[in-house]
């Protein structure tokens, strides 16, 4: 029996790009580097218009503890600081850099046999955030309030299409393990687990052959959302994170594969300014996994990957995975630390349905990994009865999308959940 969690669903894997090795993506002439690539306070710009910056130079300084430094990804001239929407639709300052294609770079001082404090300081300095998509500053996560005894690496990659973590495991296995060891040192834990879904046998085999004794590779059942934090912790350790609690409450810290890799790079001296990214979907010709510099506009990626979206076809452009990612209004947004994928889905790959009346089949209830009743919460939201939604436990919703995915009436259940959570927070309903 493979390890897994209760309920959940099985979207098609669609890992079309799993055999595409990571290659360097070409660099545009003008990059827009968002100053808020993380959860928390946006970074403060430390460069002015007209400054010459180098690759790896600090351009945005963390504004508070829950914030992260931002580095320039190319060398060139700062031509402006403009407000622009990011991939999730937030208006933030972007530093505009005109690439001089010289790639003169500065790096942080490489650490040899670093101590716990040195590693922690470096993670903070290099601006490492959770690179699975949540972009929570890693140094905050690594200072848990409770004692921690298990470190879990989230390599489930349960979202359809995305394969960048898979390629990272196959190609950068050694650096990944170094990164894991640095985190273990910071957290003072003796045991780490890498959770990988069973549909990546090559990665499991390879990692199992190179990991030392203190890291175990766990084969998990291929089921969505295997990579959701609470579900992953349950699958691997059988510990249940209390409602409203954090993984540290049950002695766990979970981090994404790419985050661990970036930590290893940071200790070696390279701050966080590029990442592995999957470009996929029927709408582009050159699907693949690429090293993309932060600040690359989506329109540039579309051009370089020979986007062939048919003018007559309806299509959908998604930043992130198809289950939890954000549909784009246009291609103006730019890549950031959390951009794990950019998908150009044609109307063959997604169907646009109009919601119809709930038939009470109970699929949303049977599949919800958080054991909620999306049908009832949706009803409450339709009546704008947020108090009832709160009583039904809507705040526990992880917005994984399982309910909407499995709904035969194609009701927009996740949308209702998000609306309820937002309204409850805004109105302070208790």
């Amino acid at each position, binding site marked *: 029996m493979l390890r897994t969690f209760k309920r959940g669903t099985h979207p098609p894997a669609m890992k079309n790009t799993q055999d595409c090795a990571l290659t360097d993506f070409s660099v545009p002439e003008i990059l827009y580097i968002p100053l808020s690539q993380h959860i928390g306070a946006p970074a403060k710009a430390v460069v002015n218009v007209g400054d010459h910056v180098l690759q790896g130079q600090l351009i945005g300084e963390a504004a508070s503890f829950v914030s992260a430094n931002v580095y320039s990804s190319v060398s060139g001239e700062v031509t402006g600081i403009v407000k622009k929407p990011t991939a999730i639709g937030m208006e933030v300052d972007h530093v505009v850099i005109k690439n001089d294609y010289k790639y003169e770079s500065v790096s942080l001082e490489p650490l040899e046999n670093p101590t716990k404090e040195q590693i922690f300081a470096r993670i903070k300095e290099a601006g490492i955030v959770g690179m699975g998509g949540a972009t929570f500053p890693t140094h905050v996560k690594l200072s848990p309030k409770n004692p921690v005894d298990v470190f879990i690496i989230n390599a489930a990659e349960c979202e359809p299409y995305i394969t960048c973590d898979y390629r990272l495991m196959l190609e950068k296995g050694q650096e990944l393990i170094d990164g894991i060891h640095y985190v273990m040192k910071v957290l003072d834990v003796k045991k780490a687990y890498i959770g990988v879904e069973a549909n990546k046998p090559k990665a499991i085999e390879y990692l199992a052959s190179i990991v030392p004794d203190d890291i175990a590779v766990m084969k998990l059942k291929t089921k969505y959302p295997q990579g959701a934090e609470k579900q992953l912790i349950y699958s691997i350790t059988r510990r249940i994170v209390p*409602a409203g*609690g954090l993984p540290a409450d049950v002695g766990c810290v979970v981090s994404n594969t790419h985050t661990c890799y970036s930590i290893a790079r940071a200790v070696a001296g390279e701050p966080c300014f590029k990442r592995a990214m999957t470009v996929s979907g029927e709408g582009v010709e050159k699907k693949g996994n690429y090293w993309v510099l932060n600040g690359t506009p989506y329109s540039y990626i579309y051009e370089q990957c020979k986007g062939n979206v048919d003018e007559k076809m309806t299509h*959908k452009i998604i930043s992130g995975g198809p289950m939890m990612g954000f549909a784009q209004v246009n291609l103006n947004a730019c890549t950031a630390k959390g951009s794990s994928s950019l998908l150009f889905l044609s109307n063959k790959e*997604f169907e646009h349905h109009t919601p119809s009346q709930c038939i009470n089949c109970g699929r949303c209830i049977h599949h919800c990994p958080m054991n909620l009743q999306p049908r009832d919460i949706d009803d409450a939201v339709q009546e704008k009865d947020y108090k009832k939604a709160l009583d039904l436990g809507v705040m526990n919703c992880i917005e994984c999308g399982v309910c909407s995915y499995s709904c035969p009436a194609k009701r927009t259940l996740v949308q209702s959940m998000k609306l309820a959570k937002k309204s409850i927070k805004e109105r302070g309903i208790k």
Partner: protein
Amino acid sequence: MTRMVVSTSPHITSKSTTQKIMLDVIIALLPALIATVVIFGVYPLFLTLLCIESCVFFEYIFNRIRKKEQTIKDLSAVVTGLILGLNLPGTVPIWVPIVGSAFAIIIVKMLFGGIGKNFANPAMAARVFLVLAWAGLMTQKTNPVIGTDIGYFSFFNYAFSINPGLDAVSSATPLGLVKATIETGGSPLQSVNVLSMLLGTTASSAVGETCAIAILIGGVYLLCRKVIDWRIPTFYIATVVVFTALIYSKSQYVGEYILTYLLGGGLLFGAFFMATDYATSPKSWIGVTIYGIGLGVLTVVFRRFSSMPEGVSYSILLMNILTPLLEKIKTRPYGVPKRNIAKEIGEKFKARSKKKVAAEGGENG
């Protein structure tokens, strides 16, 4: 870049749609329909088609009059008509299916808000309504035509008559015969044949429910396609077995009673196709358990003690009506600790006595 769709996540959805689910139910009912034609002739098929057509027609008309979006494409009206047709005696005149369909669709389904909002399974509520309104017609026990010299089209003679010929109706169904043996104390298998119950070649007042094999094929299909909740038929049938065993525990023919109760009447049909109706069955574990056990207990009680032959229909109707109450049982979100009810009550009690002490203290002061 012309047409871009923007929506909230998730951006992909499962292949399952309401229409596909209903199509699965229709497919699952086909074995029972074929068995009906083979056993009871062509007239029941005609009645069933009439039910389907009237159900779709009434839903169409209702939506037109109310100026609502047309919903007949979701095929749920077809399912209702099909189930209703299979639940009629094979000799009723042609206005019975039309009246039944009107009741099922207009009153039980559409007036309560359409699909998913009906308070009871529309087909079953319509059957109960017809039984109450035309008890004589609806309790006629149609004789099988297979293996007899009655023609496959002969029942068409009764299309406009309320007095079917004696060759068409029987005096008793297998369960009626079993009930008779309770008084005499003999084995129930003296009067009924298990093989004919499995094949469905027995008299019945609902033509579709006799062939146990055909119903089981359909039921297993629905379970494999994950259309119905496996817990409902399982709990229902298991409770019937256990409760029958309890009631007849003194008899030396317990096994035979259980067998005839399982195969006889509408139990299998009800358990797979009617009790599992989405809108009228609970979803939580506690709810489903109470629902299934309630169905089983009520069915056995009606069959053993009631003078009416409608055990399954009445028990499903009663539990359908109880469902909104069972649906109020909330699930416990992941990570929320189990409620310790004993402790909660204890604490409430403590708080109350403290208040009391405080109040008394206040008076004294």
